[in-house]
């Protein structure tokens, strides 16, 4: 996946998670944790497995200037990794971002 494709998927879905592994088979605890929190919000989200294609990870890091995964995007904007997603879930900021991204 090149940066154009990353930009396209991030801007065409309210919520996108770039993860190590898939939704059903996360291969890293942090990726699984981010998805678990999103599951709790009840909102649908797109998962991109960075291992599916060779250059996805390098292009993602340069696109978001964020070095690690998972990376969660809401409304086309980088929210961060599982620690920020968890913190924003606790403060309610995540739910506000989702409301804006889904329009309700």
């Amino acid at each position, binding site marked *: 996946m090149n940066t154009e494709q990353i930009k396209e998927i991030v801007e065409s879905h309210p919520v996108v998670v770039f993860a190590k592994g898939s939704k059903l088979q996360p291969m*890293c*605890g*942090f990726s699984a944790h981010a998805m678990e929190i999103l599951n709790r919000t009840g909102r649908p989200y797109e998962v991109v497995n960075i291992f599916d294609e060779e250059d996805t990870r390098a292009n993602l890091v340069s696109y978001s200037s*964020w*070095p*690690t995964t998972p990376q969660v995007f809401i409304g086309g904007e*980088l*929210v*961060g*990794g*599982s*620690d*920020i997603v968890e*913190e*924003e879930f606790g403060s309610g900021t995540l739910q506000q971002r989702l409301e804006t991204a889904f329009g309700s």
Partner: protein
Amino acid sequence: MISVEGLRSLLKEHFEGDEVEVRDMTGTSDHFEVCIVSAAFEGKSLIEQHKLVHAACGEHLTRAIHALKIKTSTP
């Protein structure tokens, strides 16, 4: 490979005089939890705060450190 002490002293260099705690989350020296209390975070978004911590880790991040759970707060 970087040790808990190695990462702590590295972070202490960038967050001088601040409280820095480092924990190895898996015992494999590549998944760390870091808690930092610093005035440097004041007025910054969570992403900006975490980017300061990423910068302090330098090239260790993703080479030696595969995953980093960050908890930031201001004094």
